[in-house]
């Protein structure tokens, strides 16, 4: 079960059902959150290396952000810190 807290007043709990499908690894297991972002990074690197082309989505700034995210995770920052410092949060 996934647990999220938006504030001290409200906690959102999401049970695992068919309507919640976390991205899976090649063995069919859900990828843990931090690993998911690392997987994003690996996919970008592998795709660019294999094809010599950028990932075929229009949002290249997002692709750069993923790479930056992985580097910052490797340098010891937590994902929450990276989110706070690299997203303009309007919510």
């Amino acid at each position, binding site marked *: 079960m996934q647990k999220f807290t938006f504030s001290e007043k409200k906690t959102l709990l999401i049970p695992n059902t068919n*309507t919640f499908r976390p*991205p*899976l690894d090649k063995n069919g297991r859900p990828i843990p959150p931090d690993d998911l972002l690392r997987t994003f990074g690996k996919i970008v690197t592998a795709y660019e290396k294999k094809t010599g082309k950028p990932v075929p989505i229009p*949002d290249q*700034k997002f692709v750069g952000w993923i790479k930056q995210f992985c580097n910052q995770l490797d340098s010891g920052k937590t994902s929450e810190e990276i989110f706070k410092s690299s997203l*303009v949060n309007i919510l």
Partner: protein
Amino acid sequence: MASIVLTPNEYYTGLVNFILFMRLYATNTSNRQKNIVDVFASETLEFGDQKVFPFAEIPKVEDYSLTSSLLTDKPIKYAEEFIGDPIRKKISLSRIEPFLKMGMMGASGLQTFSGYILGLMESAKEDYLYGEIMSDLINWTPAISTNKEMAKKVDLLPTEGVTDAEKLNAIELQNQKRIEKAWQKTFDDFSIYSDVFLDVDNAITGKETNFKSAVNLEDLIFIGNAEYLNDRVVNLMATLLKSEVIDGAFKRPVCLKVPQRTFDGLNASSTIGFVAHKYWYQWFYHFVFMGSFFDIDTVRIKNVLHFWYSKGKLKNLPASKLTANYITLP
């Protein structure tokens, strides 16, 4: 190098598009268990608007004769079946604030957000397709009935009104044996050349044909109503799959247990199940397209999933439906 900072618009659209890219190129090789809808799926149509399935009759075996000639023209009769005409469907969904908040919180929020993107719309699609597929299968009635065995009845003893536990057990055991025997006979019969399981008429006067089919075990699918998939039938399947002639390289038949509720919901509670060629009933995508944009005015992500597909049964592939027929006790 300056740090990259994303606006919500860049973040959400980038994330959704990246997940879709990843789904297409990276994670669709995952070994997750196939669901019932996947079992009936065949390859996505690469181009064109329909699939063509040709089939030909079996040539006759003749006696040797000195007067016969190679020059005598003996054309093989040939026919084609088509599955096409796309059924065009779409699902639209606006993602609301709690989901967006979730996606902004951190890596775990992003993972959940991704899970929902993959999950909600696909679930709606799967739910819809399951209903369509089951309705097609369960309501199937062969077009030809003369000299055919596509609709078979299995005589069962009724348990209604029987309260004595011993008698009840005896009746249920007898019924299990009858169902098991009917399954066994049906898939045994599939292995020899015959037209009794084909919905093709070979006896049209003046247009006689010799369309026949035999199917190996590995090409079969067993679709069973859970209500009638008793221990004996399950054991039969297990024996079948553990046979010594079957090694690791053997492609096993597909054994599918469909919840009883599905049959009850379609007023087909007495249907025991089907034995068929695994491609007898199939559906396939023409294409699947999912797009999204982040509407900053309403703070919503608007997603649309288009799925165009075709479905159909092939008359030249064998199929048989088993139905329970409760007889009156003497």
